[in-house]
């Protein structure tokens, strides 16, 4: 594949559970090196979309290409190779509770590579530091960490194999505003320095405004629009208007555009 090809390319995706159709004819492209934010109401199937892409869900129809390879029909062996290029941060961290943070990060390293313990330790600590955790957190168990530290530890684990794409499911949910802002900056720094592509599910409007290159809106069972924020904001659809023109959306927009933007129109 050439550099211009999308890293993720979804066409005509259809997901359903029983009679309930979650996605219908969903299309989405994600370009290399961008941070794409996926928004949508609760229950609109954002997490289901993520699970389909990383191969944890089984779509009823449609095509999903990761790095130019079809995920839905891939053999198990190929899938393992592709999965190693994806880092996933689950909503609640999903850290292994019986392992310390350092061991959590080391799992993938020791499983996939034949490495000395000293090298594994060193790389694990490097990822922990990259994720912005103090080194004394390395020997702690997940139950001893605060919410923000759990997210960072989970981020360190998702970075363990130096993935090309990072999938983040609500990374800033449950963090205080300062912690959330720091996490946003961390993702931005990692994207810039490690050249990651970031697929981000979020409800956090500040995250959307500060770090996302493009925003994809998931509503009515498909991606209504996937574009830069100025385009998405003005897209004429009831849910999107409410989302971006509501009090929270306006506040987040003002915070980013100050002092250049005039107060939002309307009212």
């Amino acid at each position, binding site marked *: 594949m050439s550099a211009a090809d999308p890293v993720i390319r979804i066409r005509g995706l259809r997901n359903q559970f029983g009679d309930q159709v979650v996605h219908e004819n969903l299309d989405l492209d994600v370009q290399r090196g961008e941070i794409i934010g996926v928004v949508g109401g609760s229950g609109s199937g954002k997490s289901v979309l993520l699970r389909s892409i990383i191969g944890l869900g089984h779509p009823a129809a449609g095509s999903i290409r990761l790095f130019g390879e079809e995920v839905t029909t891939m053999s198990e062996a190929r899938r393992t190779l592709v999965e190693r290029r994806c880092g996933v941060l689950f909503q609640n961290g999903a850290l292994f*509770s*019986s392992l*310390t943070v*350092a061991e959590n990060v080391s799992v993938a*390293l020791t499983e996939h*590579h*034949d*490495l*000395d*313990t*000293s*090298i594994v*330790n*060193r*790389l*694990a*600590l*490097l*990822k922990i*530091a*990259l994720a912005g955790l103090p*080194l004394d957190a*390395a*020997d702690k*168990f*997940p*139950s*001893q960490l605060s919410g923000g530290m759990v997210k960072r530890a989970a981020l360190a684990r998702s*970075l363990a*194999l*130096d993935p090309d794409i990072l999938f983040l499911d609500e990374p800033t949910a449950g963090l205080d505003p300062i912690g959330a802002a720091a996490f946003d900056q961390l993702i931005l*720094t*990692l994207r*810039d*320095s*490690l*050249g990651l592509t970031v697929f981000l599910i979020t409800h956090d409007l500040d995250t959307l405004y500060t770090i996302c290159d493009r925003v994809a809106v998931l509503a009515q069972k498909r991606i209504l629009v996937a574009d830069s924020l100025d385009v998405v904001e003005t897209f004429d659809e009831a849910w999107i208007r409410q989302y971006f023109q509501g009090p929270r959306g306006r506040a987040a927009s003002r915070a980013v555009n100050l002092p250049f933007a005039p107060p939002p129109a309307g009212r």
Partner: protein
Amino acid sequence: MSETGNASIAESGGPIVASGDWTLEHIGHLAALCESLKRRVGADTRVDAARLGRIDTAGASFLLDLADKDPARIDVADDATRKLIAAVARAGNAPAAKSRRKDAGFLASVANIGAALEGFWDNTVALIGFIGLILSAFSRNALLPRRWRMTSTISHIEQTGLNALPIVALLCFLVGAVVAFLGATVLKEFGASLFTVELVGYSFLREFGVLLTAIMVAGRSGSAFTAQIGSMKAREEIDAIRTLGLEPVDVLVMPRVIALLVSMPILTLVGMLAGIIGGAAVCVLTLDISPLMFVTRLHETTTVRHFWVGMSKAPIFAFLIAAIGCLEGFKVSGSAESVGSHTTSSVVQSIFVVILIDALAAIFFMEINL
């Protein structure tokens, strides 16, 4: 395909030239390489990484080793690599972590024995305290029918009693058959095969019926209590119950204790009957004792006090199994592993206590000639 990363010093005092892919796949080789080159690195040796292939954080970490952790001393071709190396340098090239190995010396093993004894003592005190809590909750709620949690209790009776009936009956049937076989083999030598009937009757009415049931219930329901309450504890549900102004012992423990108090005697009765039927089956099939003869003999020789001796232990065992199961559940902390270890501990403790009490009871009943 990718080319293994390499690095060399062309001339003494010249730069280290890095080439190839410095990625995780080649990291073992690169680590050895860096170790050997590091001795030849001077205070101002530069690293020429302009002809580098691919690089990731792992590779960058080792490349920084060659440059004495100073990203400014690495010459790179493109901006992306520069940023990557800078980010890794900022994160710090951390030293290898100290291992969490335990001391295994003589003193440590003595200390372990001490800790185990102390743990045993603490467990016993906690169990006695918890039994007190249950009894006080019982007396608090006994006269207030409005506070009886009938739905919950009946659901637990179904799970611990009704659903356990088949397995308890089958187990006792099989053990009854085995006891009859053993008895028949030994007693035949004395020409006293007929006494097999008493053997099966006595053993199941007095001991095996209640003991096998208790072991089954400890493994099946005691462990379930621990796992249920434990995972609630791990997810802060117990704290939520408290903040709603409810008492966890009332809400979670009482229904389970009462359910076992109801189920255990019923299961014990079924266990006794199944064991005797198992013994009877063996007698009929191999000893030429007819079913009628078996029943008559049982009726003549076995008095009802044996039944009461066995049955009197059922509620005691039920209470202890439920108390231990619930208490271990409350002891769970944070992790999934903790739920597992406390479930194991709950079953081991329950069975230990059941057998201990049974042994004491056997001596007691013997001494009072029952």
